[in-house]
């Protein structure tokens, strides 16, 4: 088992994410059509296509630089609130791993924590508001717990991805407090949040890339 996230794993993560978001474009649009403005899948697909188009020229850059350029590409191309939010996630994540050639579990904790804090600061959402935070915050907590328990990087990331998936499912009964869905009030309950869904897909893509790297 590979126990570090190398630059190649990061590059693979971003290209996997682009592929997964393309596959799930219509699914995310359907989720967003129920409680939002039906553009989340289109926006995320557009944003990560832009990121994917940059990857060949980032092949020799540092992990921090790759993450930073990913953030800027998302900010300039996504269009909805998820552009600044995910953009901030990657910009803060970049700062958290500055100077690292590869990432161990504590680095991944720092990356995810900085990214989630960036989203909380910019979006002002709290857990339970039916947003991407409801997938990301449990993932961060699971990752921190796995690290404290001394689990391997892959095992810790598995825990984080599973927590994100559970958090995503747990958004279904929630009433939205942020974004376009909050205009629906009680009618937003009964639908899975598209932002929590894309957050899970992004984290799960990192797990896939790490496991692929292990061969």
């Amino acid at each position: 088992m590979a126990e570090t996230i190398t630059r190649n794993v990061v590059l693979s993560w971003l290209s996997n994410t682009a592929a997964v978001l393309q596959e799930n474009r219509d699914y995310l649009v359907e989720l967003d059509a129920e409680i939002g403005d039906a553009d989340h899948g289109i926006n995320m697909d557009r944003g990560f296509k832009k990121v994917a188009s940059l990857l060949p020229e980032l092949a020799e850059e540092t992990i921090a630089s790759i993450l930073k350029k990913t953030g800027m590409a998302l900010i300039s191309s996504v269009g909805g609130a998820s552009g600044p939010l995910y953009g901030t996630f990657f910009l803060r994540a970049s700062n958290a791993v500055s100077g690292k050639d590869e990432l161990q579990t504590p680095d991944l904790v720092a990356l995810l924590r900085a990214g989630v804090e960036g989203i909380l600061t910019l979006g002002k959402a709290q857990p339970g508001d039916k947003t991407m935070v409801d997938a990301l915050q449990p993932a961060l907590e699971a990752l921190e717990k796995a690290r404290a328990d001394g689990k391997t990087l892959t095992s810790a990331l598995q825990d984080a991805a599973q927590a994100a998936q559970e958090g995503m499912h747990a958004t279904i009964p929630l009433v939205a407090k942020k974004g376009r869905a909050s205009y629906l009030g009680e009618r937003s309950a009964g639908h899975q949040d598209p932002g929590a869904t894309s957050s899970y897909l992004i984290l799960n893509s990192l797990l896939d890339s790490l496991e692929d790297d292990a061969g």
Partner: protein
Amino acid sequence: MIGIVLAAHSMTLASAVKEVADLMSRGSVPIAPVGGTGDPDSPFGSNPIAIAEAIQEVDSEDGVLVFTDVGSSVIGVVQALEFLPDSTRGRVRLCPGPMVEGAVIAAAQAASGSSMEMVFQDASNALQAKAAQMGGLE
């Protein structure tokens, strides 16, 4: 003179509001419309980098008042602030007033040389002025 930025989900919307506001100022107030994604398949959205450019386009020592339409325009402006030089960021105000009514009031006030504080207050209270105009008809 203060500058005004209209940050909407569509350039058509932002540009139309600018046309209405320009009538009040006879075009004397710098007003920059910004909006849309540039993607013909999904044109509605905001681009924080384009918003930052619009702010710089109308920036002066007197400051910049920014109006937003809905949803992610607000978060787009907040993110845009991060891309501005400190000097500019310190004189940008984000107006909670409605875009159409607020921009019209702001353009008229700015054209007469009002301070940022006065323009901000009047534009922020634009819905009260509208309610008063309706005089209980609503």
